[in-house]
């Protein structure tokens, strides 16, 4: 374990060495941003609307009492969406979509000697392949999480609109009542950390792939599994430290 951790840290250090030519790296960063951001927008939008709707319905179901104001549903949906559902569930989905793609892309480049070709040319392969993905991850995952939060709360609105348990006015009042801005900060920090975790772990798994197509698949699977575990671990750490 410590050997792998050491290799991971060394790889990250190599990834952030001075680039050979900034313009070439910049275009790679842009390409990765489009791939991670725009490419994941569809799936994030779909799951966010459903999660928001389900969270609202279940909260309303559990708080059926005359002693509890109906506006509480909006407040709980807001907090749970911003703090947990949007960043963490989105990150777990992104680990599957983006992480497996990164690990298999880099792994395939490794087994087909494309990484060797880069090194022969004198290119810092970790820098060229990994740093643009990490930069794109830490910038695009927070943006996706913002979209997810907005759509999650919209999903909640649609759910209350379609049912008679809570009125839309109560829901909207609940969304703004007792809002504590610290949850947005926590959400942002989580998103940045998750973006880093997904891209760096999956890139590491891909970069050290050995063998053929079977091993590429195994690297992608390992990348996704380790990313998911680390996302949940970092969720715990950040929640414990900041809340």
């Amino acid at each position, binding site marked *: 374990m410590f050997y792998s951790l050491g290799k991971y840290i060394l790889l990250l250090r190599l990834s952030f060495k001075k680039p*050979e030519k900034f313009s070439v790296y910049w275009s790679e960063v842009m390409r990765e941003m489009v791939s991670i951001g725009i490419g994941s927008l569809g799936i994030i939008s779909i799951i966010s609307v459903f999660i928001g709707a389900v969270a609202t319905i279940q909260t309303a179901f559990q708080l059926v009492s005359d002693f509890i104001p109906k506006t509480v549903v909006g407040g709980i949906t807001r907090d749970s969406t911003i703090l947990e559902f949007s960043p963490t569930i989105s990150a777990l989905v992104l680990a599957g979509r983006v992480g497996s793609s990164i690990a298999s892309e880099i792994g*395939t480049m490794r087994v087909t000697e494309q990484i060797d*070709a880069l090194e*022969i040319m004198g290119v810092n392969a970790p820098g060229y392949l990994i740093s643009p993905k990490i930069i794109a991850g830490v910038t695009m995952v927070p943006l996706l999480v913002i979209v997810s939060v907005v759509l999650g709360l919209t999903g909640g609105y649609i759910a209350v609109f379609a049912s008679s348990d809570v009125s839309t006015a109560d829901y909207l009042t609940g969304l703004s009542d007792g809002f504590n801005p610290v949850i947005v900060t926590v959400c942002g920090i989580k998103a940045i950390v998750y973006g880093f975790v997904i891209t760096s772990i999956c890139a590491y798994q891909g970069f050290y792939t050995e063998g053929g197509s079977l091993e590429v698949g195994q690297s992608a699977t390992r990348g996704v599994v380790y990313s998911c575990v680390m996302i949940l671990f970092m969720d715990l750490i950040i929640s414990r430290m900041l809340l």
Partner: protein
Amino acid sequence: MIEVKDIYKTFGENEVLKGISAKFKAGKNNLIIGGSGSGKTTLLKCIVGLHEPTKGQVFFDEQNFTEMNFTERVPIRTEIGMLFQNSALFDSMTVEENLMFPLNLFTDKTKAEKLERANFCLERVNLVGSNKLYPAELSGGMKKRVGIARAISMQPKYLFVDEPNSGLDPKTSILIDELISDLTEEYKITTVIVTHDMNSVMGIGDHIIFLHQGKKWWEGSNKEIAHTDNAELNEFVFASKFMQAAKDKI
């Protein structure tokens, strides 16, 4: 000139290279031949720095490549072109982008100049008009030729070629050999080719190193190889009935 001195390479318990020393002649086709598992590709990878030798040193024009760090190696690496066994073209890039990639990173040429160089290299390997194709759209022989074009795009001083004929039909193999040989002669490149193709050995082998069980077993030219009394080399080169018949005629 490229020189290797007392190269050892071990993977775990397996000692693949056992003290190989050799000089690769400047401006010539230098062939490394040997049976499967003899250490040909490992030696090539040790020379270009893809493997670090367990012991021994590699010199490029008397500069000790083995003792350099990654940054110090970059100037030498920009003088190296390499054709990989499976061509190793970048899948996500077109042929033209593959050729322009090293030029983008290591030169200050304008886009027009880079395009001109890419077109020149494609013309040199008879692939004019294939600029916008992706590697997946190319045949095996075309991939090799694009690989060669990419390898010469930076006007290298040293060209390394790993199994240029693998997976190719005999006619295309000869074309690739001739292309490599012509480029070597035309641009005075020091070329090191790993092969076990006997047509290549006889056709373009200016200088041949035969590896056996991780050691240098024989060294000479294609003219000398037919008359050697080295048993292992004879067994390797004249293994087929066709080659045996050719030897008998000689």
